[in-house]
């Protein structure tokens, strides 16, 4: 289990660091340099593997009970095999990805890889429709792979999409298995594999699944830290790094950085007091600072401002805030998406019935700070999304219909993590 957990934690993190190294190389040398592109990520990888082996095994966790419910394992394997087949089929039909996959993320990768010293052309206002202000983790990960291979191939974006999709399932299952027992871990994995939109969207080569992965990883690292607070401060630095990588993946990551920092403070201060909370925040910010600085550098120095809020005038903003119909439409769409967002039978209603049947975990004996951090972060993210829709300049109906399901699927793995931390197990041993 340690091996699965460590790999799921580190492999996407390595992709993120490779994209950062590629960006630094482009900024300072105007080209991909072997020193940055290969040596820097590899050095970090060695350090990260050492850190994972050094710290993860010593984190206290409830002894894994010998739960011999093989049928759940078999169902998990069937669902995983089906998901893998679906992923391959979709990738075979759409080797360049779905709409945003090719028109935004893969096109930016092509621009940067093909244009040499003119790589800044990819942020030209002439192609403003391709959202040049979007962060670069996904395209630069593709460029990194192409640079290492030495040529362009559609296998690279497929592979990156696969790494993030598989790692999300593995991280969710392995972390829940570690914190609540193996059966719960398998159930969490089955729940996410039962979300058709998650699998389809993973293969579409959009950036939402990588973003959702970094949301999940940040929250998981907080929860692992809570297993033995104070003994593994590097887990907090890593959670800052993964939060920062979410901002380096998509604009929603910026909201997540703010949400998770506030959520953590609100969760920790009442239990541990102000000073430890501030110390934890300092460690979190230490990890966050570099990817966040790179994101701001990209947005301030390299690209024209984004289209969502930049053209907002104060009078229009007030006008939008004063329209009850906008609140009603957003609320209605949020509720509909919450019910139908997975595009399958295993959505929120089924989880609600499951929760009502099994009840909440008896957690008097152990701190619930990890779960609280997750639930507060999700709530703040939803509040943030609500506010952005409220004030945005697009046609609201159109904007909701084209984006809300993707925002939902970004938060779904983190929601499932929180859910399986909080729900009572079908046996009452944990």
């Amino acid at each position, binding site marked *: 289990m340690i091996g699965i957990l460590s790999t799921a934690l580190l492999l996407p993190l390595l992709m993120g660091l490779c994209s950062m190294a590629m960006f630094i190389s482009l900024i300072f040398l105007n080209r991909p340099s072997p020193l940055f592109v290969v040596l820097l990520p590899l050095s970090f990888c060695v350090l990260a593997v050492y850190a994972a082996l050094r710290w993860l095994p010593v984190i206290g966790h409830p002894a894994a009970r010998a739960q011999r419910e093989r049928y759940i394992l078999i169902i998990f394997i069937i669902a995983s095999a089906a998901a893998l087949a679906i992923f391959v089929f979709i990738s075979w039909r759409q080797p360049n990805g779905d709409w945003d996959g090719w028109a935004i993320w893969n096109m930016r990768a092509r621009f940067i890889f093909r244009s040499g010293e003119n790589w800044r052309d990819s942020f030209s206002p002439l192609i403003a429709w391709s959202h040049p202000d979007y962060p670069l983790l996904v395209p630069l990960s593709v460029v990194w792979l192409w640079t290492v291979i030495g040529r362009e191939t559609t296998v690279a974006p497929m592979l990156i999409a696969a790494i993030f999709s598989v790692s999300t399932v593995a991280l969710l299952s392995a972390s829940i298995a570690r914190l609540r027992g193996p059966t719960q871990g398998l159930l969490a994995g089955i729940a996410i594999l039962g979300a058709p939109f998650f699998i389809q969207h993973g293969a579409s080569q959009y950036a939402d699944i990588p973003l959702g992965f970094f949301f999940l990883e940040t929250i998981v690292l907080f929860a692992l830290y809570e297993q033995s607070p104070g003994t593994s401060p590097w887990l907090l630095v890593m959670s800052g790094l993964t939060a920062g990588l979410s901002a380096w993946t998509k604009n929603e990551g910026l909201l997540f950085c703010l949400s998770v920092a506030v959520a953590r403070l609100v969760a920790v201060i009442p239990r541990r007091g102000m000073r430890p909370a501030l110390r934890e925040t300092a460690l979190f910010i230490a990890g966050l600072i570099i990817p966040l600085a790179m994101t701001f550098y990209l947005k301030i120095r390299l690209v024209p401002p984004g289209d969502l809020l930049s053209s907002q005038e104060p009078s229009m903003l007030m006008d939008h805030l004063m329209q009850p119909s906008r609140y009603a439409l957003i609320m209605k769409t949020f509720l509909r998406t919450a019910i139908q967002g997975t595009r399958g039978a295993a959505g929120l209603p089924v989880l609600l019935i499951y929760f009502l*049947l099994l009840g909440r975990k008896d957690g008097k004996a152990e701190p619930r700070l990890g779960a609280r951090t997750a639930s507060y972060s999700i709530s703040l993210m939803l509040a943030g999304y609500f506010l952005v829709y409220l004030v945005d300049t697009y046609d609201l109906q159109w904007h909701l219909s084209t984006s809300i399901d993707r925002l939902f699927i970004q938060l779904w793995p983190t929601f499932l993590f929180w859910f399986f931390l909080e729900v009572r197990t079908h046996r009452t041993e944990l």
Partner: protein
Amino acid sequence: MKFSSFTRSRIGLWLLIACALFSNLLLLFRSTRQLFWKDNNDYAAYQQQKSRLGDIPEILRARHSRIVGYDTDRRPGTTEYFLSQFILAPILVADDPARPLIIGNYHNARGIVLIERTPGQ
């Protein structure tokens, strides 16, 4: 009728597993059926048309430019324009028919063509 805690937990467990597995396998069935459907974004056909455009980078280099315009008699803002940009990157395809060098996408030209304009044309 009151169920015991054990029965309730079993019902919950199997409900969750059944719904997840049903959704998962239904998607597999649909994906298998769609496997040989034609993709709406027909890159391969578009990629082939690119060869008809000649050596655009060379022409642009001679003009000290990295930008071509785009003109069409089809519905503006359609997938074809975005595909042109995707296929031709890193050449910048501006949605502007007034440029000296343009990609023309006309329904009677059986695909995309390159049009060079001399000043005054």
